[in-house]
């Protein structure tokens, strides 16, 4: 994929990407940074890319990964700042990041284990197989609305666990 094609692709989809990030972070400055990150990843990957008519899909997958990475770093950073406030230390140790990530995973894992069985079933099917909610509904023989409500309730509990984790 040529440099010109990369620029064209970015120019064509920047409004949609801005929308994508804007809805998620609601911060213009951060949206700009995340867009730059998408552009950087696209330029890096361009020489070995061959997009057969699915350029938009690829671009949004990159954007989703950039957002995911940002949010994950943010979760750990928030935890680090809380830990820093709690301790008398004056500087954050970057070596703590893997430890904090493990702590986060443990907290989420415990929250999932504590979910009611019906909610956990939906969460596990989504996690293990990555199937759509409609497919989960079909598999569990439940209405789609019920599955969505159960997933929503599960995420609310996980969100509460994240709050207490922070």
């Amino acid at each position: 994929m040529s440099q010109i094609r990369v620029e064209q692709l970015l120019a064509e989809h920047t409004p949609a990407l801005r929308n994508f990030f804007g809805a998620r972070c609601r911060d213009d400055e951060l949206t700009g940074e995340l867009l730059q990150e998408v552009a950087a990843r696209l330029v890096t990957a361009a020489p070995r890319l061959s997009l057969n008519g699915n350029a938009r899909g690829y671009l949004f997958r990159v954007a989703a990964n950039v957002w995911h990475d940002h949010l994950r770093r943010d979760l750990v950073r928030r935890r680090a700042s809380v830990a820093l406030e709690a301790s008398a230390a004056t500087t954050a140790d970057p070596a703590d990041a893997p430890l904090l990530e493990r702590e986060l995973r443990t907290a989420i894992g415990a929250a999932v284990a504590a979910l009611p069985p019906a909610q956990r079933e939906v969460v596990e099917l989504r996690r293990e197989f990555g199937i759509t909610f409609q497919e989960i509904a079909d598999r569990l023989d439940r209405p789609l609305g019920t599955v969505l409500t159960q997933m929503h309730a599960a995420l609310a509990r996980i969100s509460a666990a994240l709050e207490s984790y922070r």
Partner: protein
Amino acid sequence: MIHPSEDTLLLLAYGELAVEQAAELESHVAGCETCGVVFARLERARVALDDVSRAVPRRRLDWAAVALAVAAVLAVVLLMGPRPTPDRASHWAPTTMSPTAGYMTGGRAMLDIDAQLTQLEQGWGRSYGRP
């Protein structure tokens, strides 16, 4: 625009809406404080959950590696481990010579050698004794 339902926001977070519908919703969420708060909470929980899921296969792999290592150690122990104690009488190999050491440690092998030496000596004695 009417606020989207929480189920719709959930489908948006998991990328299960049509492109046009997703774009329309994202425009709304970007400018709506109420939906933005709900969506941000959903996204944080979703990403945290995805992250745990990504970590699971690696943990399984670690256990597989541990199991393989244990199996390898066991195999080595079984192959190189204790062998039957050799029969001292049949496998004795002297390293130092001593007149009595053979009788003390050599057992039957040394006794056989001693008997042959005695026969030779007797033979030599008879030839040397002849006039």
